């Protein structure tokens, strides 16, 4: 019993101990309860006092990850589908440093960063030390641009490491699970595969939605797509919804330009510039060279070229005109931008000059159309004519003798034209100046066309002596495209077409969005007047100043122009030759302008007529204009010589089309066909 009692006492003591513990724990429990009550009150307080404010703060800090998705700028292709301008996908390589280091931490070592840096360095050629340095400096960064402008191929090569292997390529897969935190940001860059070809016509786009000069700027709205957007928004139930609006790519322009014709023209311009380089003065063969080839009956421009030109892929490169030191000096002086603009602007539409004798057919046409001339008049030229106390000389100071109207045009006699202008009078001259669109924009679809309305005469400035000189193209300024469009109307029956460069606008899928038909603006002269003008202009070639311009195997007509620049007497001339082919049924207009040729005696139209002949000899067979004339032995000899010297630079290779143009249907060159196929691949959905 004693033992039992002892046991009982012990047990009681133990029970007592336990009861104390239980009691105190009970007290603690109450304390815990109080703590919970306190916390609950705090919760209620936070909710009651700040509900609205915090809700707003939360909404305010939602960024929804709004992201712009780049749209692809439309392409510019020539009439054969050759790509002149296109946008390529490029990628920025982004490294999420934080994610990479987290992966390292999870793995417990640094194999992930090691492998990732190695792969980045190998694929993109970025030095490992640069990446390591950055990771060291900014370990929290989630956006480190490892490389800007990686190509699609590079991106693919890197993705080989991160693409999980499928059943098929298990053996060959380069998959490396250690590579983490790398992603790509897609954007587009403009590419000009033909480099400097038609540079002034095409213009360039340096950043998305922005373009300078030429078609790129004029058709910027059509070319620029609509960027897509990925964004989140709060729905009625304050949940975040993510929505993606895909980007709409820009439209494609189909140009009337023919890359082959353009290339031939540019080749000849360059050849001229090089031939007379550093001849009479340092520098290229002329200050500027311009050439427009246009279809006479539609206003479609086949080629529009000027020299010096520039590389569209690197427009800032002014090395064609200036040395590096000069560029630096210009940058210091602040004239660099002006120099760039001078190079980038399109001579054919932006520069103005006095047309000179090319104006003569226009003057004659005014007279014939208004009946003030019949075409049967004859004039005597003694070398000069006194108009309002001024002695105005003919370019032939010895006098051209007695001339018919036709002869006056053919010999380009100033005196005869002055007599004609007297018959025409200022009123008619001004009226027809307007009808021929001189002083007005042609509205060609290019940006940068010069305004000439203040550079032509008006009723306040046109007096007797001005009228006399204006009759042979002095005293007012024009642009090349104005003369070209006007001359086309003179010889095609009187129909003035708006010159244009784009024939079609295509959707990204390749369907036609807009067909741009030739736009007949007005009839400027009657058919019969036009026939007479054609006849006179043909005489310029057969029997006058333009005799050097006749391309072998073809007939042509045209008008030369030699205009002395201001101030008069400085010996500097702008030489030009405008011509139509074939002679009796004009299809092609070709206008060549040589601005101050680099020769000691500039006043000689032969530079322009020969250049024109070279160009025409080259492009006419290509354009499938049939030869109508027998080739003389001299012609054949000349052609085969040309073949060797100039024609070898053509896009087409191995065709001696000049030899027998009729038989020689021009097939598109090999490299152009290649690009064309690529191009078609893009357009077939």
């Amino acid at each position, binding site marked *: 019993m004693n033992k039992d009692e002892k046991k009982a006492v012990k047990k009681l003591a133990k029970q007592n101990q336990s009861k104390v513990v239980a009691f105190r*724990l009970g007290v603690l429990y109450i304390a815990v309860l109080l703590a919970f009550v306190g916390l609950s009150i705090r919760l209620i307080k936070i909710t009651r006092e700040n509900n609205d404010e915090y809700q707003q703060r939360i909404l305010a800090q939602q960024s929804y990850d709004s992201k712009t998705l780049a749209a692809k700028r439309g392409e510019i292709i020539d009439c054969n589908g050759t790509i002149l301008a296109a946008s390529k996908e490029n990628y920025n390589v982004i490294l999420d440093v934080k994610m990479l280091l987290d992966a390292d931490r999870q793995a417990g070592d640094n194999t992930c960063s090691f492998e990732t840096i190695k792969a980045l360095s190998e694929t993109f050629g970025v030095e490992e030390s640069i990446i390591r340095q950055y990771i060291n400096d900014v370990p929290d960064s989630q956006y480190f641009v490892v490389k800007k402008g990686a190509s699609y191929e590079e991106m693919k090569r890197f993705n080989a490491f991160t693409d999980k292997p499928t059943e098929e390529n298990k053996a060959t897969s380069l998959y490396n699970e250690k590579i983490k935190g790398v992603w790509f940001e897609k954007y587009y860059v403009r590419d000009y595969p033909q480099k400097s070809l038609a540079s002034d016509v095409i213009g360039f786009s340096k950043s998305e939605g922005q373009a300078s000069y030429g078609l790129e700027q004029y058709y910027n709205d059509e070319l620029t797509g609509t960027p897509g957007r990925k964004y989140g928004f709060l729905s009625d139930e304050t949940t975040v919804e993510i929505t993606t609006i895909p980007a709409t790519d820009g439209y494609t322009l189909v140009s009337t330009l023919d890359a082959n014709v353009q290339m031939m023209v540019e080749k000849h311009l360059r050849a001229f510039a090089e031939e007379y380089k550093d001849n009479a003065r340092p520098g290229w063969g002329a200050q500027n060279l311009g050439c427009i080839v246009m279809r006479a009956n539609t206003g479609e421009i086949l080629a529009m070229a000027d020299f010096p030109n520039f590389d569209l892929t690197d427009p800032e490169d002014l090395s064609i005109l200036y040395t590096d030191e000069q560029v630096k000096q210009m940058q210091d002086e602040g004239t660099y931008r002006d120099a760039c603009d001078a190079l980038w602007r399109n001579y054919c539409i932006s520069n103005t000059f006095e047309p000179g004798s090319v104006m003569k057919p226009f003057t004659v046409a005014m007279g014939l159309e208004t009946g003030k001339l019949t075409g049967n008049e004859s004039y005597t030229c003694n070398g000069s004519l006194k108009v309002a106390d001024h002695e105005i000389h003919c370019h032939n100071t010895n006098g051209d003798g007695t001339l018919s109207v036709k002869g006056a045009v053919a010999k380009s006699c100033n005196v005869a034209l002055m007599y004609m202008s007297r018959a025409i009078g200022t009123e008619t001259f001004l009226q027809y100046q307007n009808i021929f669109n001189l002083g007005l924009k042609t509205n060609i679809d290019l940006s940068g066309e010069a305004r000439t309305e203040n550079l032509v005469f008006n009723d306040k400035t046109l007096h007797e002596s001005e009228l006399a000189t204006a009759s042979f193209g002095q005293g007012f300024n024009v642009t090349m495209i104005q003369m070209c469009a006007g001359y086309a109307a003179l010889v095609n029956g009187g129909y003035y077409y708006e010159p244009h460069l784009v024939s079609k606008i295509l959707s990204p899928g390749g369907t036609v969005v807009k067909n741009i038909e030739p736009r007949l603006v007005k009839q400027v002269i009657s058919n019969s007047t036009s026939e007479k003008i054609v006849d006179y202009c043909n005489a310029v070639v057969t029997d006058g100043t333009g005799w050097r311009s006749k391309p072998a195997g073809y007939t042509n007509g045209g008008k030369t122009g030699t205009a002395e620049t201001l101030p008069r007497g400085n010996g500097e001339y702008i030489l030009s030759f405008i011509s139509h082919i074939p002679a009796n049924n004009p299809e092609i207009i070709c206008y060549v302008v040589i601005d101050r040729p680099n020769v000691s005696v500039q006043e000689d139209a032969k530079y322009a007529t020969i250049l024109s002949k070279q160009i025409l000899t080259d492009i006419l067979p290509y354009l499938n204009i049939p030869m109508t004339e027998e080739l003389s032995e001299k012609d054949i000899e000349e052609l085969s010589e040309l073949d060797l010297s100039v024609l070898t630079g053509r896009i087409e290779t191995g065709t001696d089309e000049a030899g027998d143009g009729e038989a020689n249907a021009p097939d598109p060159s090999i490299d152009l066909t290649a690009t064309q196929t690529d191009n078609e691949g893009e357009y077939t959905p």
Partner: protein
Amino acid sequence: MAENRPVRRKRYVDYSLLVIVFFLLAFGLVMVYSTSSYSASLDFEGDSLFYLKRQLISVVVGLLAMAITSLIPYTLYSKLRHPALLAAVGSIMLILTPLGYTANGARRWLRFGPLSIQPAEICKIAIIIFTAALLTQMSPGIRAGWKGFWFPIVPTGIICLMVFVISDDLSSAIIIGLIPVFMVLVSERKNIWPILILTLMVTVGVFAVLFVVKGWIPASMSFRLERILAWLNPEAYADGKGMQILQSLYGIGSGGVWGKGLGKSMQKLGFLPEAQNDMIFSIICEELGLVGGLSVIMMFILLLWRIRDITAHSKDYFGNMLVSGIFIHIAIQVILNICVVTNTIPNTGISLPFISYGGSSVIFLMAEIGIVMNVGSHVRFVEEEADEQENPYSAETD
């Protein structure tokens, strides 16, 4: 009642405790999925179930641990005073070996193949066992004196320091430091107030040192200081340390009374760091509102009530202390977690028991619940020999 005796020999299971624990676990899984699916799908290549799957595995392992500990007679632990201490010290020292594993910038884990364990969690349960066993070993006289205080506090204090220094984990150290202090307080001793005052002074002293000797603060401490400053004025530190706490408050405040609805939190979309972990309570309040948050608090109140009830009916001192320790552990962690989330105390990473994401925490908490169940099931064996009249417990449960 005599005729019921054979029936009573059956193992007693506190089902209400079990139900509460299971509810908290299931609720925890739902919330872990809700809070982590967005960030998981971003971080793990679209695998939004990443955290849920891992937590599910932990819960299954935890259930196993609970089943095992509920079957092991708890009296066995009373002999494990020294092994428990050794296990605590050893597990922390292992962090310094190559087994130690760094994640999220802190070396706090041990890795055994695919398994990773937080030694701090081992320490918590080891210290509960050690303190309970040590106090049981002492005679009531010693226990009541200062020796009864210093004997358990010194070794556990050393472990607390080790956790802080080696694994650089202040929050676990605080919990490990507080558990034995409260256990000593509830143990049968007379001088409670000096101990309470001492604890308070130590705490205040630590903070005072932190504030006064700014230049003396080592680099690892300065970020804690910043946390304290951020606590005092979270808006001023909105970019740095105050950001998390401010986002947490935004979450609670914007939830309103009824919440935005399950899964509709906006704060979890990358704005509130550690949303599935320390800050899960904020998301609970945002999605389920004040009602949801208070319900969770209510569940913990019920859980703690059940645990305390078992101590009230245990006649065994060791079992009593053991369960008290577990009670204290859970209570401290819940209170501190909610305090942090509501910006009541400076920000320190403490997870919400049973609900927060974290494998080690869930597994060891479940093991502790297993121990509580075991203590509860042994109530009878003690009672049988005791005076039945004094046993209100059997009357209640019959």
